[in-house]
């Protein structure tokens, strides 16, 4: 019997709202299964279970905001329901107390719970069977995002229908001045902590992209659109390989010491159309071929743009890459996302004069910067790390 708790998805997360119970009580679960979705400041996160067993019961009703660490479900190891210490058998469900019970006709509404995160909330009464099945609130990604931005309580809409964007009041409609959105608050908290605690140092250089762009163009020439590679995938692999070789830039600084990452989980800074950005991890970015990495990148970007990503993707990036793509400016110097210790920034490619063999030639280049944590490394190692990335970009066929 294990408690499944509200996970922490980063230093800036204090609480989360359970918005989907994907697995019903009594159903089997396997390590890695997604069993719930949690609304956080960054959007909806799919939560994985870390063991095999059965979902015994949910402890927190839908729509309830609870602090990180609060048990939200009970997982038991065997199918055997009635352990002596577990009073409720799964089958005969006691009638819920009337004042908290959902209306039988309209199986809505997780009881509206006050916002202030008390200590561990009382386990709710068992849901009647039909609610356990139909009690999952169905919310479109756009509606979920707007609700998160405006602080609108999705639970107030119940579970009767699919909730679309039109059901969520626009922030502009409300008269009062809007405080910082939850997203901007989360960014502010993390970046303030970074600037306060991390002694950053910065290095920069130029990457000649001629070979990398030729490689991409040659690869893509005879490929259908969905098999084409983007230049960004070369950056990812180049940074990941360099981070593997120079572990002082890949890991977490916590409790006064640096813990190198066991693998390179590359955080990708992805901007959201609705404003703000997130930097979920592309796991094990050194493994697989470029085509596989590209497919994983596309999947990650698509899910993030729909406001949907997984808990591990948010909690365990070991280094971040922020790339401005083809519509940005010349360069970007990043702010390290704690507890990470480095961020690599890559600007927008442009045609620049370069001196090659004593002649000036137009070349496509971009700026690359490193911001790194001086508690862990210094400029000498930083320069080696940056040069390794640049060198990889000159040998794209080996990525």
């Amino acid at each position, binding site marked *: 019997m294990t408690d499944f708790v509200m996970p922490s998805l980063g230093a800036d997360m204090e609480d989360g709202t359970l918005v989907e119970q994907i697995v019903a009580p009594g159903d089997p679960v396997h390590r890695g299964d997604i069993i719930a979705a949690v609304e956080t400041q960054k959007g909806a996160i799919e939560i994985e279970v870390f063991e095999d067993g059965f979902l015994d019961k949910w402890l927190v009703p839908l729509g309830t905001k609870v602090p990180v660490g609060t048990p939200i479900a009970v997982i038991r190891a065997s199918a055997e329901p009635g352990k002596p210490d577990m009073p409720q058998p799964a089958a005969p469900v006691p009638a819920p107390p009337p004042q908290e019970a959902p209306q039988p006709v309209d199986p809505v509404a997780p009881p509206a719970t006050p916002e202030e995160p008390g200590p561990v909330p009382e386990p709710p009464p068992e849901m009647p069977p039909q609610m356990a099945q139909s009690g999952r609130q169905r919310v479109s990604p*756009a509606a979920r995002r707007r609700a998160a931005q405006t602080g609108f309580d999705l639970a107030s809409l119940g579970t009767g229908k699919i909730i679309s964007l039109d059901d969520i009041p626009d922030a502009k409609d409300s008269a009062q001045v809007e405080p910082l959105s939850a997203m901007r608050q989360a960014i502010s908290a993390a970046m303030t902590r970074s600037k306060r605690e991390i002694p950053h140092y910065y290095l920069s250089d130029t990457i000649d992209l001629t070979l990398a762009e030729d490689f991409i*163009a040659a690869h*893509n*020439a005879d490929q*259908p*659109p*969905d098999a*084409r590679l*983007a*230049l*960004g995938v070369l950056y990812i692999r180049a940074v990941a390989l360099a981070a593997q070789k120079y572990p002082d830039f890949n890991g977490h600084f916590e409790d006064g010491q640096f813990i190198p990452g066991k693998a390179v989980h590359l955080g990708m800074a992805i901007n959201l*159309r*609705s404003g703000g950005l997130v930097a979920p991890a592309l796991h094990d970015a050194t493994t697989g071929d470029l085509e596989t990495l590209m497919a994983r*990148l*596309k999947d990650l*970007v*698509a899910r993030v743009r729909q406001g949907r990503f997984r808990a591990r993707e948010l909690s365990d990036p070991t280094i971040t890459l922020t790339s401005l*793509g*083809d*519509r940005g400016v010349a360069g970007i110097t990043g702010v390290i996302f704690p507890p990470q210790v480095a961020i690599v920034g890559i600007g927008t490619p442009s045609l620049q004069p370069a001196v090659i063999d004593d002649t000036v030639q137009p070349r496509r280049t971009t700026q690359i910067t490193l911001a790194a944590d001086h508690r862990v490394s210094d400029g000498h190692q930083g320069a080696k790390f940056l040069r390794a990335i640049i060198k990889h970009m000159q040998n794209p066929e080996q990525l």
Partner: protein
Amino acid sequence: MTNDQLRDLLIKHLERIAPDISFDDIDPAADLREEYDIDSMDFMTLITALGKDLSLPMPEADYDQMRSFDDLLGYLRRHAS
């Protein structure tokens, strides 16, 4: 496909990628990526979807002919049977 059908198809895919921007708000002769604020990854998604729907290869070498909404519509008109 008629011109109107191609136009509707293009608008449908653009509005799926950029749900916050309406076609009425954009300049069809201006840079498509600027107008819809779409990045290279979104553009790839758009080309993939159009290529599938219309059975067109839409090679990368032709991307220069797809800069604005009008350019892209013209390209589709010339190549889609």
